């Protein structure tokens, strides 16, 4: 099961636990599983927080195609089973992957209700709204509204989106797509109990008119822009490239991030240990001719900060540079400059990170 799905289940569980407490209800987390030979995912969904799983398993659903998937989800949403007072889901979460975002759009077009995309924060509470179309300008309280927060306006705004009934129409469900990595999954609990409801596959041939004739995996593709922390290795690793790369990898992992590279490292033709050679790839390059990233933390290890590299990372929230030379260009556009040999500094950082995490764990 994709990480984003586990994250959504975890968040849905937290949202509904609080909802049931706040509103003295006993509403459920429902997982929707579509595909072919995916029974095991239904059980995993329950172990990860679902109370109910709606499952349709059919060869025609092996690949995600928007038409059949949308129609089936719409059928499920309108089913009267297992939902007591409501005909349709109250809140609906989708992953904000390419397919997930598209699917959320078509499902909500079919259900004719509201959708916010690429959300990274969710909470349910009553909303006091005064809106010229929805409330004729007078303030009204709408209860149990999913507040969906998402970045937009090219990174300049963080908007809170609500789905609110109009005087003419009650909108169900309130839906959103969720940015991968925004939430934490629940630990797997094999003792959780839940119900699997099999929804039959029942679609006219017309809905299967799009054919997928082939696929190709993109080798080495790694999207560094989706990580909160990037540790980028520069030519400061030259004196021992293997050790340098492995230290940067360790640091990245300890902070939940990923490894990036400067262009100089990509073209240096270092001889690396076989297990590490795969990490030197242009796919990880950051800079004008590589990826542009805006993470929360950008750690530039042994990178001088030439303009070609700067263009790919200078919009990061916080930039930390590790370098022996204090006269390099990056000193003028970083927030923290640690002067030192990366081969000594990174192990020290790793040790302190381990201590810090131990402290956090013991406190919690």
């Amino acid at each position, binding site marked *: 099961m994709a990480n984003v799905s586990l994250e959504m289940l975890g968040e849905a569980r937290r949202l509904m636990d609080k909802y049931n407490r706040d509103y003295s209800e006993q509403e459920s987390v429902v997982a929707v599983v579509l595909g072919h030979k995916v029974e095991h995912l239904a059980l995993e969904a329950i172990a990860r927080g679902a109370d109910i799983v709606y499952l349709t398993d059919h060869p025609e659903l092996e690949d995600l195609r928007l038409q059949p998937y949308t129609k089936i989800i719409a059928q499920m949403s309108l089913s009267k089973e297992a939902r007591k007072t409501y005909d349709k889901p109250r809140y609906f979460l989708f992953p904000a992957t390419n397919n997930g975002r598209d699917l959320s759009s078509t499902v909500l077009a079919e259900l004719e209700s509201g959708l916010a995309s690429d959300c990274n924060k969710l909470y349910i509470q009553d909303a006091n709204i005064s809106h010229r179309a929805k409330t004729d300008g007078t303030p009204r309280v709408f209860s149990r509204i999913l507040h969906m927060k998402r970045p937009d306006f090219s990174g300049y705004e963080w908007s809170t989106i609500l789905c609110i009934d109009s005087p003419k129409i009650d909108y169900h469900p309130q839906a959103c797509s969720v940015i991968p990595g925004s939430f934490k999954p629940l630990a797997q609990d094999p003792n959780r109990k839940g119900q699997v409801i099999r929804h039959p596959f029942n679609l006219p041939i017309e809905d299967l008119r799009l054919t*997928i004739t082939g696929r190709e995996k993109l080798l080495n593709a790694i999207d560094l822009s989706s990580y909160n922390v990037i540790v980028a290795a520069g030519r400061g690793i030259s004196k021992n490239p293997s050790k340098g790369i492995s230290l940067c990898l360790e640091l990245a992992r300890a902070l939940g991030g990923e490894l990036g590279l400067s262009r100089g490292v990509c073209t240096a033709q270092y001889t690396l240990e076989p297990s590490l050679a795969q990490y030197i790839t242009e796919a990880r390059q950051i800079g004008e001719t590589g990826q542009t990233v805006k993470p929360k933390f950008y750690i530039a290890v042994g990178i001088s900060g030439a303009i070609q590299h700067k263009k790919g990372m200078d919009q990061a929230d916080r930039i930390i540079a590790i370098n022996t030379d204090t006269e390099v260009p990056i000193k003028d556009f970083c927030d923290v400059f640690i002067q030192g040999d990366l081969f000594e500094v990174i192990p020290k950082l790793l040790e302190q990170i381990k201590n810090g995490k131990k402290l956090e764990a013991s406190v919690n």
Partner: protein
Amino acid sequence: MNYVVVTKGVPDFRHGKVVFKEDNTLNRAATPTVMNPNDFLALEAALEAKVKYGGTVHVISMGPPPYKKVLQEAMSRYADKLYLLSDPKFAAADTLATAEALSAAVRKIGNIDVIFSGFKTADGETGQTGPQTAWKMGYTLATHVMEFSIDPQLKKFNATRAITGEVEFTTGPLPVLVVTDPGFQSQYKNATQRLNLLDLQAQTKKRAQSFEEFLTIWNANDLGVDEWKVGIKGSPTIVDSVDPIPRAPSERKARMLIGTNLQHIQEAVQILLRSDQ
């Protein structure tokens, strides 16, 4: 063959064009409006279809009267005809309500084989409007398209799509709505096609100088839409509040730390482990 390209005007987020308030947050009102950058790819895709299969390219945008400038920008890339959907009733529409108005316009033009749409506007950034328009029209939907081709005789299309970590090859019947991926590339493999492309580009640039001759403006009545399905009335979602995010500082002042100093290392780790909400 008939093609529609749906476009939108957005604030100009380019470096040096976007205007900031004193607190370094976005000043939307003072920032000029331009064609959504991703929409240029949809225009390129439509032009590619015209070069290869012939036909007419109709470009639609929904917005207040000044947005006709955005349509002029579209024509300087390529358009045969322009349509502005303009009516106070269309204002403050979310994606569902926008899709409703756009669908009505496409039906009014009639006989459209392919609708081209860009992926994600630079302001709303939802990526929803294209798929929702396709759904309302009952068109086959191909999203994240990197390359495509049409068979006008068999009334079919082929599309290469970008999915996370993969590329997918699909085929389906017309009519179709194609959402171009930001990585979309038109493919012209023969010299004659490229020369015709140059001719069309020269013609459209000339036409764009007197673009209003080719512009039709429609309001809610012209489209015959239900006023509770468009604009602010027809939008299930509202923007309740906005937290502005100031731009990253262009000048940073570095805190200088020494790598052999344990306290400095601890300070650095403190910064890294600090989680922000």
